[in-house]
């Protein structure tokens, strides 16, 4: 496969999962698919990073899980956002905006005349 795909920036996976689940409850594979789609296939989510992340987030109380039947009649574990998860998403989103703004600022900076 042609790989313009990149690994996720460290620490952003959880934020993206939260965002995905904020749209609707979803199973693991669906979350991975949706992130790939929403990022126009720029980001690749491997199961090796997704499932441990889901366990960690569940431990922190951001998401809950329950077994449900998919439209294809298969049992799958669906994850849903909790209130704490929503708050976490807001917090991460704000932090991300600050950080990305700062990074963009640095990247678009030019050397001011007279500066050494």
């Amino acid at each position, binding site marked *: 496969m042609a790989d313009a795909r990149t690994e996720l920036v460290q620490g952003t996976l959880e934020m993206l999962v939260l965002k995905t689940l904020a749209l609707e409850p979803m*199973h*693991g*594979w669906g979350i*991975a698919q949706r992130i790939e789609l929403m990022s126009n296939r720029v980001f690749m989510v*491997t*199961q*090796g*990073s997704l*499932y*441990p*992340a889901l*366990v*960690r987030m*569940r*431990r*922190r*109380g951001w998401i809950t899980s329950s*077994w449900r039947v998919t439209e294809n009649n*298969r*049992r*799958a*574990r669906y994850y849903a956002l909790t209130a*704490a998860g929503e708050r976490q998403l807001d917090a991460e989103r704000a932090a991300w905006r600050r950080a990305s703004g700062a990074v963009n600022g640095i990247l678009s900076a030019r050397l001011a005349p007279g500066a050494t």
Partner: protein
Amino acid sequence: MSIFSDLGARLASIVWRRREEREMEEELRFHMDMEAEQARRAGASPDAARRRGMIALGGVERTKEEVRDARGTRVLDDTMRDVAFSVRTLLRAPAVALVVIVTLALGIGGTTAIFSTVDATLVKPLPYQEPGQLVRLYEGSPGEANPHGFVSPTMFLAYRERLSSFEHLAAGYTYDDRGADIGADGRPERIHVLSITAGYFATLRRPPAMGREFEPNEENGAPSVILSHQLWVDRFHASPTALGAELVMDGRPYTVVGIMPGAFVDPLRPGADAYTPLDMTPGLDPSNIDNHYLTVIGRLRPETPLPRAQAELDAVLVSLGREYADARRTAARLYSLKEDMVGPASRALELVLGAVGLVLLLVCVNVATLLLVRASARAHEFALRAALGARRSRLLRQMLVESLVLALAGDALGLVVARAAMSGIVRLGAGSVPRLSALSLDPTLLLFSVAITTASAVLFGLTPALRAVRTDPIDALRGEDRALAGSRGHNRVRSALVTAQVALAFVLMVGAGLLLVSFHRLRSLDLGVDTDHALVFELHLPDARYDSTARAAFYEDIASRIAHLPGVRAAGGVSKLPATGEYHEWGTVPVTGPNVGRTHANVGAQQRIVSGDYFRAAGIPVLEGRAFDARDAAGTPKRAIVSTLAAEKLFPGVDPIGQRLRTGGFEWEVIGVVPDVSVNAEGDREPTIYHAHAQFAGDRNWAITQIVSTSGPPQRLIPLIQRTIAERDPQLVMYRPMSLADAIGAGTAQRKFTLVILVCFAAVAVLLAALGLFGALAYAVKLRSREFGVRMAIGAERGTIRRLVLRQGLVVTVAGIGIGLVGFAAFARVMSSLVFRVRPLDPSVLIGAAAIILVVGAFAAYLPARRATAVDPRTILQ
């Protein structure tokens, strides 16, 4: 929330681990199926689909591991595996593990129980406000090192009037242990009464809960009574109308003026049921200056330290000595009440505290050496595991877990031992040791001993593991024990450990030996009376029905009735049993003989009032003259029998028979001489004068303790004697019947308590020391088994090697004994107040202890040496 939900999720993961695993499998399979489905739909070739599946599969196991990690249960999982593994390992070689656990349990249990006893009886304050201000006052002769005599009423009144250092000074009647009968109708009930002066409760700052305490104007035997809470509940059903009501004691009505609070414990007589005003009128009569019968307590003013109060007391005594020139005891000493209450036990308990420290130290050293033994035995296992790639942290963690498993097992067993020891101590000291009822395991102390021993177990459990992981596994696998035995420095540390162990063991063993000898001497002491075949009991004759004539007749009559019972050799009575303490010490002066008119002719003599055939009943032979008999009745001239010591002091160099003496306000003719008997359980003798009850019954209602000499076991006669008494007077109670040995034992119960505790404790310490010594020397020999193999292989005789090992073991042991001896000599002075009729550096005890330690040391060195040399050298060298 997060911490708890996190912890909850982790715990749930452990509990539901199987389910979690199953669900994880299913979830991942679903993921892979969806992945494959997508690939197929995208039209991937079967090959590519398979390859992708393989990659995915490879990833699955890693993902599973990572998911497991993410659950946060990995450390716990591993730990549980370690614990299970440790238990299996410990069970495979249970001997060392068992010894470590027993060492910890005995150490922790023993020390905590002893610590708590010390804490409850010595360290905890008295249950009164500002207990530091409370003192006890004793009188004595000038120049006496440790005066512990009671106070005369004349002196007490003078102190109370003249001393300004005291907020309050109060007295109780020392000899009030006969009690009183309450209830006029039917069978009387016996209660304990204490007579006290005004200000007694103010001194203790514990006023009655209702009513008031006695006023100075009641100090003339006024018929007032203060009830204990218990008596108020029992007799008056806790009714407030009890105040002002009447209580009949010994047929005489008393008015209730106060009721004590329920939590009050009397410092002088913990079981007191009622208080009556102490009659202080005898104190106005200067002739009572030498009648010592008061127990005096006081509360110092807050600004007055004890030494200043003592200085004022000394000054007052100088002028009192001038005013009463013939007084014999013109010195007095103040002691802190707390020190006085725990009394002789306090020194012993301090000593116990020191011994507790030594034993804890010994436990730590023992555990250390035992764990070193274990580690050396397992060096190969560790080297092998390190060589096979086990991580150091993993090995260390496993050793840590093993040490903890050992330590926790020891701690748990220690708790059990401590609880058992505590209930044993309480049972042993019940009734004889003040404030023991408040005894409970002290959590702080328990934590302390558990912490210190656990820490040492963990520390010394890890040390060998640390050394093992630092050692090149190749060396260890080759059997280079040197690598594990460590450098010369390590050897020196180990030798020091063993020497310290021997020294500690020696000190503890000498201490135990001295106590055992003391105990034995105390037990086998000749008290001058026959304690084994005598039954004693009290009979109280109520004043209302018995006047002095009736009392005199009764005691003679009941003695002769009992004497005629089968199995009885003789029966009589006495005002204070031998060997149960000083009582009624009166100034006695000779009226005839060489000492008449001389200064210091006045002898402080113990006075005893006897009835019936007392001397035969108590097993005291009459040396000269005769015993009292029917000729010595109320109307006849007063006659006395003197003890050998009294005869020597009053009538030196002459025949005492027929001499005359003056005491108690009367003149007496000496008609007999008897040997001295011990006045206390320590074998001390005092000049003693005996009077016939029949001649002295008019003086007061003497509390006469009956004593019956029996041919068989004394207890068996109790029902028969009870019937005999009932035939004479059905209303009388045979009070507290027991053997004379028990009655004397009760007087020494506190000392016995201390000794038994110390001896048990020392025995435990010695056991621990022997275990430790054995472990340490066995370890040293084990480390050298390879060297022995080499020596034997090149032709050394087994015997030579064994002797070598033995010699080296003995060198360490002797060095330890030497150091222990020096250490013991340093605190022999502390011991000297505790031991009885044995010098602290008694050679036989020292030699005995050294011999036992040497034998243990020799065995401890020889047995492993024998085992090491018994095997074929080839086996060792392979």
